[in-house]
């Protein structure tokens, strides 16, 4: 469904990711891991269209979307839950979810369906998004992305700054999302959490792929994660 | 593989760093301008009266543009109300010269002082507003100053007043005299601008313009730095107004308080290059030349200025100076910092 090959992107003169290739299938989870500044969020932003690719291609459902605008990618079925949640603070929770109607995509994820998935969000629906706790914000951000009925969901650091119980609670919803045939590409700093849920893992080191595969051991990963040579 | 810092790579002994502010370019630039000033001082002896007269206009525009550039280009204060001080300066000359009979040079200094004093309370109103609303706010304040000035029949009310003090001088002498004052004022303002940009105030201003919050958390007293520049710009505009009064001998409220002054200074700075010291000088030359060529076309000329200004903002953000200096980092004035490291073998490296 998503096929990225040779993707390179830069902030001004500084190359942030280099020559990255990966694929995500419908109903599958790929976890991108790596240390701070490895380029994980940049990778998701580039796939979502917030950052232009300097070279390489992004194919989605067989179409080349490398040069498409971010909103067009959303309308094709790519949703990003951005780093830091980025809710609209002056809108209520429900209004935040309703903005996703702009994607004009219909599907299983109606407002009622996401409220069923996240009862806490339903409870807070008339509150301003600026007045939510971190966990409520993260749930709302995921719910908002689901309302665009994505075929591919990009999750950026879902666990950042949240208590373990809340993180576990959020991750427990992923199977319901996958059940709709949605593919998930998630970025995670917590490696064990990522390995628990993901089908395969893609490790970044200083903007480049350092390791990729399924059923990896912690020993393989620690080398690729920290860039320590095993000699 | 984290790229190691050069300091570490070279071992323990710290290399020597040197910071230079003068470059060959800025030495040439500054001395070239010095020569130009001397030549210009001799101009009234060499050209006819109408050229000298037109040059007064050039210096007025130049000092307005230089100070507007300090406000907007360095300080982020987009004022559309500098005409308040131009008007006050012009009226100050008339009042101090004709009513109190003071020497004309003294009245020009007083024009600067009165404008600066007026700018102080005005700044408290204007600084309540930021960005775009600051612009209209300064405009409203200029309107208020105009509406108050025209209340006084003693200074001609709404129809204006003539300056009697200099009218008995022969025309040639009066114009040459105004020219030298205008030249001197422009040089002084230029020197102050260079000094401001070189000084801590210049650094603080740039910091404030780029990020108010970051600047204030790094210890810049934002409002106080802004206020000083605001008052300096007002004083310079007061001098500009005084020059208008002594060169034309006539002060009309609708003309000295016209928002068109702001339009002209904005045009000059935008076309020359905003946020540089060289920009306003180049812009003033371009604007002045256009004015000599096209001013007779009236509205059409102003429409052209508007279009050119918009085209520069959209497509040539750095103005003419920005386009010229982009590659080579040219500087006519010694305001930058050149940082170089001299290694133990004495070779110099650019960082």
């Amino acid at each position, binding site marked *: 469904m998503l096929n990225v090959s040779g993707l390179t992107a830069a902030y001004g003169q500084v190359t942030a990711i280099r020559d990255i290739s990966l694929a995500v299938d419908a109903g599958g989870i790929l976890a991108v891991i790596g240390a701070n500044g490895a380029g994980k969020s940049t990778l998701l932003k580039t796939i979502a269209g*917030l950052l232009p690719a300097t070279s390489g291609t992004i194919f989605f459902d067989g179409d080349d979307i490398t040069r498409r605008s971010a909103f067009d990618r959303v309308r094709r079925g790519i949703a990003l839950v951005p780093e830091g949640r980025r809710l609209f603070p002056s809108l209520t929770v429900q209004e935040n979810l309703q903005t996703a109607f702009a994607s004009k995509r219909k599907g299983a994820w109606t407002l009622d369906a996401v409220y069923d998935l996240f009862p806490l969000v339903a409870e807070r629906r008339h509150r301003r998004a600026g007045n939510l706790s971190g966990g409520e914000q993260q749930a709302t951000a995921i719910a908002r992305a689901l309302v665009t009925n994505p075929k591919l969901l990009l999750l950026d650091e879902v666990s950042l700054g949240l208590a373990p119980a809340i993180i576990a609670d959020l991750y427990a919803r992923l199977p319901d999302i996958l059940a709709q045939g949605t593919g998930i590409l998630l970025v995670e700093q917590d490696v064990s959490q990522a390995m628990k849920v993901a089908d395969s893992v893609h490790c970044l080191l200083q903007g480049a792929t350092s390791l990729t595969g399924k059923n990896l051991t912690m020993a393989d990963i620690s080398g690729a994660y920290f860039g320590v040579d095993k000699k | 593989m984290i790229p190691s810092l050069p300091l570490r790579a070279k071992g323990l002994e710290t290399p020597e760093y040197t910071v230079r502010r003068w470059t060959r370019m800025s030495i040439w630039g500054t001395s070239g301008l010095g020569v130009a000033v001397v030549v210009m001082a001799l101009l009234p002896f060499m050209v006819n009266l109408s050229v000298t007269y037109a040059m007064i206009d050039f210096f007025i525009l130049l000092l307005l543009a230089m100070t507007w550039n300090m406000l907007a280009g360095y300080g982020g204060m*987009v004022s559309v109300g500098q005409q308040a001080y131009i008007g006050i300066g012009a009226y100050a000359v008339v009042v101090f010269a004709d009513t109190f009979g003071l020497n004309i040079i003294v009245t020009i200094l007083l024009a600067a002082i009165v404008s600066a004093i007026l700018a102080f309370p005005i700044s408290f109103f204007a600084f309540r507003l930021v960005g775009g609303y600051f612009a209209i706010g300064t405009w409203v304040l200029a309107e208020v100053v105009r509406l108050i000035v025209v209340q006084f029949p003693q200074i001609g009310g709404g129809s204006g007043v003539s300056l009697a003090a200099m009218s008995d001088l022969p025309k040639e002498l009066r114009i040459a005299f105004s020219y030298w004052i205008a030249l001197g004022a422009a040089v002084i303002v230029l020197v102050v601008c260079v000094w401001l940009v070189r000084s801590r105030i210049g650094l603080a201003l740039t910091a404030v313009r780029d990020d108010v919050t970051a600047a204030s958390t790094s210890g810049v007293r934002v409002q106080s730095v802004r206020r000083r520049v605001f008052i300096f710009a007002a004083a310079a505009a007061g001098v500009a107004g005084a020059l208008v009064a002594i060169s034309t001998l006539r002060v009309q409220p609708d003309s000295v308080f016209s928002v068109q002054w702001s339009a002209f200074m904005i045009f000059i700075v935008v076309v020359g290059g905003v946020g540089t010291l060289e920009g306003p000088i180049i812009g003033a030359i371009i604007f002045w030349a256009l004015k000599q060529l096209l001013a007779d076309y009236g509205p059409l000329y102003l429409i052209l200025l508007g279009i050119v200004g918009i085209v520069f903002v959209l497509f040539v953000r750095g103005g003419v100076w920005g386009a010229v200096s982009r590659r080579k980092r040219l500087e006519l004035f010694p305001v930058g910092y050149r940082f170089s490291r001299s290694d133990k073998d004495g070779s110099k490296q650019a960082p």
Partner: protein
Amino acid sequence: MNLLEPIVQGILLGGLYALFAAGLSLMFGVMRIVNLAYGDFAVLAAYGSLVVINVAAVNPLVALVVVAPLMAVLGYVLQRTVLQRTLGASPLPSLLVTFGLSIIIQNALLLFGSADQQRLSLGAIDTASVELPFGVRVGVFPLGVFVLAVILLGILSWITARTQYGRLVRAVSDDPDTVTLQGANPKIIYGVATAIAFGLVAIAGVAAGIQTSFSPSSGSMLLIFAFEAVIIGGLGSLWGTLGGAVILGVAQTVGAAFAPAQQILAGHIVFLLFLAFLPNGLSRRKVRA
């Protein structure tokens, strides 16, 4: 002196100013653009109506039906082609461009028209008046403008509060990048907002052209009144803006009742008092600028 009549007239005048202020504050709220050519676009609309009236021999309200949509289209195109390029962290580019537009419009009107004062006329309605309780007589037209202003502000506030477009407008002023992640194109949201603002300014310009007179240079004054109403009302609140406009209108008419020549100065002084003592205006919310 009976102040009741000037106060009522000032309130009605506030309706006219609110029409101006709503568009200015909409453009600022959505795009952070302060449109310095705003008053000039109002004058342009008034001249446009004059042309339609002369060509088609219709009354100004019919002309407005032609001119308002044209102005809205102009606004949309201007936003997409010119103003969009000025958006960014610094307010300088949009200020400079709109100031340039102001100069172009004023001088183009001078070039194709004349510097004379013009007026639009609705015939008998111009001078018709009605008597309100307590013996206050007010003009029918100013009363109509006030009612229209309240209706239009009501519609605008319903759009922002209740419709999908309104939600996107509020979202885009919070965070434009994230709006693209919901599948919306901020440029279109901006274009439509500018179109609405220009439609409003056309209505306001024609109303002002009937109520008072206009000339190529009268746009600056209209911009200043709109700005004063916005600041007195407090940024980011439509009904606050109406309140601000009414306060400005009353300040002017009551000032004129004491000293007929000082109408505008009286308005400025009240504005400055608000700026000094209530810098956030009637609404207490602080809005980033």
